[in-house]
């Protein structure tokens, strides 16, 4: 009776945008994590719990409790099950009877344990849900996050305002960490999902859904394995043409050698094939959570550009050398400027204690100058006007903080940078590395981030991120990538 003629993609929309959510089995021992996560949910929240010792705790949270899903009046769009694993099949049966939109099993102890009991129970819920066409997320996961409607799986996650970033993660921890860390980087989410053991729904179904979702403009994925690789390949190829898709593949190092009789077979390790797949589809490869954060941030806040020539502005001589090395190692070039740029620079740049070939060493013309702000504006403009330069990188220091000390005070440097960022047509980013004080560096990056200026904590992260962005746009233009 749950069998619907609608596609999974269409039916997933109800699960990602529920109007009613039921939590089965939340309890004191979990700190009522699920019900607390739903405190801001814009819709009806129900609890299902038969243990009388939990009744008062649930009532204190202002949530109505029922002895079973069947007793809830009205439809239930999304169910979160945190029950003991042996009860899981009974809950699946109730979900089918109740015709819920979908169910997420937080419950673990299934096939991931490798035990006979776990495998048997996973098969039981898979068979039941598969037969009825029930959308089952997990098991062994934290399910859906939709900040716009306050649907969360952790009380720390932000809510209220939605964004354009969608995230799909096999791991619940990665889904939680990325959405929480993302908020600090001004990354706002449309939806995210963690899908654990992928008993029924696999990464491809979620990718197809976010691919069609109008709220989602960028898709990040953390994947360990896919069930139907051919289908995943086709979906990724089609969707990556329309939206940036970032892929972080976990477990790459665990693969052993394969027994084969050809050179091709021996060399085609899974890691190499995944890398080829990502390239072939025009998706973006990232290798960890930091790279995921950096690259999503770049796609949101750095203007598109496919040129590989970078103009660098550094706060000192030593930093200018290190900055150049980092960008060159990442595969970008740091070329000389045009003659007319040098003529313009000669008019205001103090070369005693500084230099302006590219990179610029601005110690004497900025850090120790009376005309710091106007010089900075001019230097940025030289880079903007120079036809040899495709993108611009500004390093900022915290040893001598050029920003105003008090956040409430007017900040002419920040204003200058914001004004430049708004009018510049080139990719532009800042790097604020930690010198003496991590809190001060963080405060500086946050100040920039709050104004929509992308800021990175190390030269290497800034350089590699820019390279990934440039490569993405080069692929879009049909260029070859090395």
């Amino acid at each position: 009776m749950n069998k619907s003629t609608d596609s999974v993609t269409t039916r997933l929309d109800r699960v990602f945008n529920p109007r009613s959510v039921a939590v089965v089995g939340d309890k004191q021992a979990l700190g009522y994590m699920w019900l607390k996560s739903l405190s801001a949910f814009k819709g009806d929240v129900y609890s299902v719990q038969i243990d009388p010792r939990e009744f008062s705790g649930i009532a204190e949270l202002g949530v109505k409790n029922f002895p079973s899903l069947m007793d809830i009046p009205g439809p239930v769009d999304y169910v979160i099950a945190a029950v003991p694993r042996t009860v899981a099949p009974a809950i699946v049966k109730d979900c089918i009877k109740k015709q819920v939109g979908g169910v997420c099993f937080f419950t673990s102890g299934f096939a991931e344990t490798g035990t006979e009991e776990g495998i048997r129970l996973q098969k039981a819920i898979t068979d039941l849900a598969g037969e009825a066409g029930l959308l089952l997320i997990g098991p062994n996961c934290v399910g859906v996050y939709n900040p716009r409607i306050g649907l969360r799986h952790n009380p720390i996650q932000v809510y209220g305002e939605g964004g354009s970033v969608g995230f799909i993660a096999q791991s619940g921890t990665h889904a939680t960490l990325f959405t929480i860390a993302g908020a600090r980087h001004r990354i706002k989410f449309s939806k995210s999902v963690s899908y654990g053991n992928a008993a029924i729904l696999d990464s491809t179904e979620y990718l197809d859904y976010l691919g069609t979702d109008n709220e989602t403009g960028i898709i990040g994925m953390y994947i360990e394995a896919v069930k139907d690789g051919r289908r995943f390949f086709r979906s990724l190829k089609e969707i990556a043409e329309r939206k940036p898709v970032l892929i972080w593949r976990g477990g790459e190092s665990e693969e052993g050698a394969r027994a084969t009789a050809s050179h091709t077979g021996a060399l085609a390790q899974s890691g190499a094939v995944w890398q080829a797949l990502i390239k072939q589809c025009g998706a973006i490869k990232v290798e960890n959570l930091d790279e995921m954060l950096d690259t999503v941030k770049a796609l949101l806040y750095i203007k598109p550009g496919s040129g590989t020539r970078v103009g660098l502005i550094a706060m000192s001589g030593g930093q200018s050398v290190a900055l150049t090395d980092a960008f060159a190692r990442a595969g970008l070039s740091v070329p000389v400027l045009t003659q007319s740029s040098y003529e313009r620079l000669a008019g205001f740049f103090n070369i005693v204690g500084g230099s302006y070939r590219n990179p610029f060493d601005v110690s004497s013309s900025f850090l120790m100058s009376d005309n710091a702000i106007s010089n900075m504006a001019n230097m940025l403009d030289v880079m903007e006007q120079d036809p040899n330069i495709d993108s611009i990188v500004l390093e900022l220091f915290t040893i001598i903080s050029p920003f105003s000390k008090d956040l409430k005070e007017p900040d002419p440097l920040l204003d200058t940078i914001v004004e430049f960022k708004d009018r510049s047509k080139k990719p532009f980013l800042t790097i604020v590395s930690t010198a003496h004080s991590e809190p001060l560096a963080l405060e500086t990056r946050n100040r920039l981030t709050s104004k929509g200026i992308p800021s990175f904590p190390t030269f290497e992260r800034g350089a590699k991120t820019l390279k990934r962005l440039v490569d993405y746009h080069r692929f879009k233009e049909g260029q070859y990538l090395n």
Partner: protein
Amino acid sequence: MTSKIITSALKSGRTVLTEVESKQLVASAGFPVVETKLAKTKDEAIEISKKLGFPVVLKIVSPDIIHKSDIGGVKLNLTSAAQVGRAYTEIIAAAKKSNKKADIHGVSVQKMAKPGVEVIMGMTKDAQFGPVLMFGLGGVFVEVLKDVAFRIVPLARRDASQMIREIKGYPLLEGYRGQEPANITALEDLLLKLSDFVDKTPQIKEMDLNPIFAYKDRAVAVDARVILESQE
């Protein structure tokens, strides 16, 4: 032709095609391959050599011998009937010595190909993504440096172009230190043909065209190795 070669190998309980069978298979699918004939006797080897024209190459043909040159089963650059006769005897003796039980079909005879830039193309089936193609430079580049690129079947023209340009040794294909450049378009065509071929021939489990000699106007496969899916 394609299905006949496959069926007959499987019927005799083999999944590994010999050099001669592998080459017949890909030649029948339209791949440019160095003409290679099976000689079952010394006289046949001499006769075929005369027909093909010297210099020739002789190689052992046995499903039980995989690393042919390691056991002395390959003789290159034979320029006369006398040399071919001697080579035949030596190869058969070496093969019998290395493996008494080896099923020896005979010796393959082919014309020594004009040297070109050596490249390798191949296919294997990935557990998750199915047929995958590989491209690389031949010899040490593939064996030691593993300088290769992969793409998932089916390939588009762009994928073929990109994977050729992706390998570190690409400048060698453009003509390095006076060497003749390879015809990149011909290599792209071959990759697309291979993509199409493996798509249509699911009975193949893995294969190598190794080496392929790339010239300025064309490319030709000098050796081929095809492994079939076992029938269960």
